[in-house]
């Protein structure tokens, strides 16, 4: 399993308000979600969510706590946050928390696999609601940064063209547009430390030396790459064992696990696997891949083309 396929055990955290708080969040991605948040003083103009409905434009600004879902594909505009109408392939959750001591807002987009990939923007005449030109497709790579760059280009083109901003029906000139307002990057906080186990990304071919015995600390897993396959080396005394890095349960990184009583413990769900056989003592159906290890002097050679217990 590639490193990209292993989900992180790091949690995401974003504080969006407290008494006296005033902060503007970054548009950030975590897992299947994009999130943004803001806290502001109560006397600041509220952010106003407008959404197209079958009856016209609805103003969803509230003076009480609210949680609203903007369905994927619905044109919506949050005045004060982004100066255009957005149509996203993701469901969005808009949370308003207007308190007497601060106002907080949260935008949470996503939930489904592969959403937050397709966005279009447009503008409507603020006087009569007529759409100004065609939908603009934002070409981006699925990351917030790329999305923001794409919106900037579309906005610049709109602002530079007074004809595009003029309503063909009533002739009113639309004000200049503005991009998604983002602030300083909020620090991400790791809820779970990775354990501090050194990972040596050494590469070798199967049957060739990949490390020396002295490179490995006793009972401390080291991940190497052999023929493109991630292999965990564990030294117990002068014996070295080699296992596949992907836990057979859910693909957790065994190389980040601890070694106890002749077994390696997966850091995700605590399944244990015998270092010599790969077998789980608690679940007979689970067995980690093991590979033959040869010591040539103090050089460690792993034969990783076929697992011993395949």
């Amino acid at each position, binding site marked *: 399993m590639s490193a990209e396929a292993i989900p992180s055990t790091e*949690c995401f955290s974003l504080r969006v308000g407290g008494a006296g708080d005033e902060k503007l969040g970054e548009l950030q991605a975590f897992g299947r979600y994009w999130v943004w948040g803001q806290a502001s003083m109560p006397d600041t103009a509220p952010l106003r969510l407008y959404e197209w409905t079958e009856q016209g434009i609805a103003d969803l600004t509230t003076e009480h706590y609210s949680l609203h879902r903007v369905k994927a594909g619905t044109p919506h505009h949050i005045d004060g946050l982004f100066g255009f109408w957005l149509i996203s392939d993701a469901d969005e959750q808009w949370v308003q928390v207007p308190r007497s001591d601060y106002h907080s807002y949260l935008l949470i987009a996503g939930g489904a696999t592969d959403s937050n990939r397709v966005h279009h923007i447009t503008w409507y005449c603020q006087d009569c609601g007529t759409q100004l030109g065609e939908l603009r497709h934002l070409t981006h790579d699925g990351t917030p940064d790329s999305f923001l760059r794409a919106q900037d280009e579309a906005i610049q083109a709109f602002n530079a063209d007074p004809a595009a901003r003029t309503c063909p029906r009533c002739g009113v000139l639309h004000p200049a547009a503005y991009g998604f307002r983002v602030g300083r990057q909020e620090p991400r906080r790791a809820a779970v430390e990775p354990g501090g186990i050194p990972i040596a990304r050494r590469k070798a071919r199967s049957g060739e030396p990949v490390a020396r015995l002295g490179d490995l600390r006793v009972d401390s897993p080291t991940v190497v790459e052999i023929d493109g396959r991630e292999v965990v080396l564990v030294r117990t005394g002068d014996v070295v064992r080699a296992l596949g890095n992907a836990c057979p349960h859910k693909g957790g990184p065994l190389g980040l696990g601890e070694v106890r009583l002749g077994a390696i413990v997966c850091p995700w769900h605590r399944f244990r696997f015998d270092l010599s056989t790969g077998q789980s003592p608690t*679940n007979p159906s689970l067995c980690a891949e093991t590979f033959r290890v040869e010591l040539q002097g103090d050089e460690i050679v792993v034969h990783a083309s076929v697992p011993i217990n395949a």
Partner: protein
Amino acid sequence: MYANVLVKEPLEKVMEDWDFLQEKILSHFATFKPVGENIYGVRRNRVPTQPPAGFSQGPATYLEKRPSYGTQILGPSGIEVRQSVDMELSIMPGGLPHHTLHSFGYWHINDMDELSIRMPGPSAEEPGFLLLIMGMPREGETDRWAWYCERCSTLLFEHQYQTGTLGFNGFWKAEREAVTAYNRDPNSRLCPECGHLNPRGYCWNPTKDTPEEKEARGLW
């Protein structure tokens, strides 16, 4: 802005369930409900933020000493407790075992990311909200209920439900089956590694606790 084209009718007439924190629909979300791409769970925040009458050591001390409803996470470094902070959005990545003390008596492992935010009440007298949002499981994605030894974190028992294939409607029945199966045999709770007998499990819904499960709810 848009004054000429704004919908004049009350929002309730234009959009059904436009606000999921409305009192009249809040009860639907006490046991979670699918909404589009996600599943929402909303609870009135039951964690008191103000000291009860007679508590003489001040609000700050009370906040330190009040009952803990923190969430435990089982990661590479072992068990860590995270106390939720008002207006903090947390996202738990899919696959990470987590357990909320005194709220559900198992380690929940879902394949979907899970968001939570605790909102304080509008005033000291009014309860706030605990909002949970989980991605809707798709085919092949599961929910699992697991129990780990509270002393050495060894996996003791696990029950799996194919949520993506079988549907979220069967989630609570499967949860009850998992808890009952774990509690049925004391050997399930006996750690093969260190010999510790672990407390029983219990479900999310406290109204159906057996006396033994109620006791376990108070323990962990």
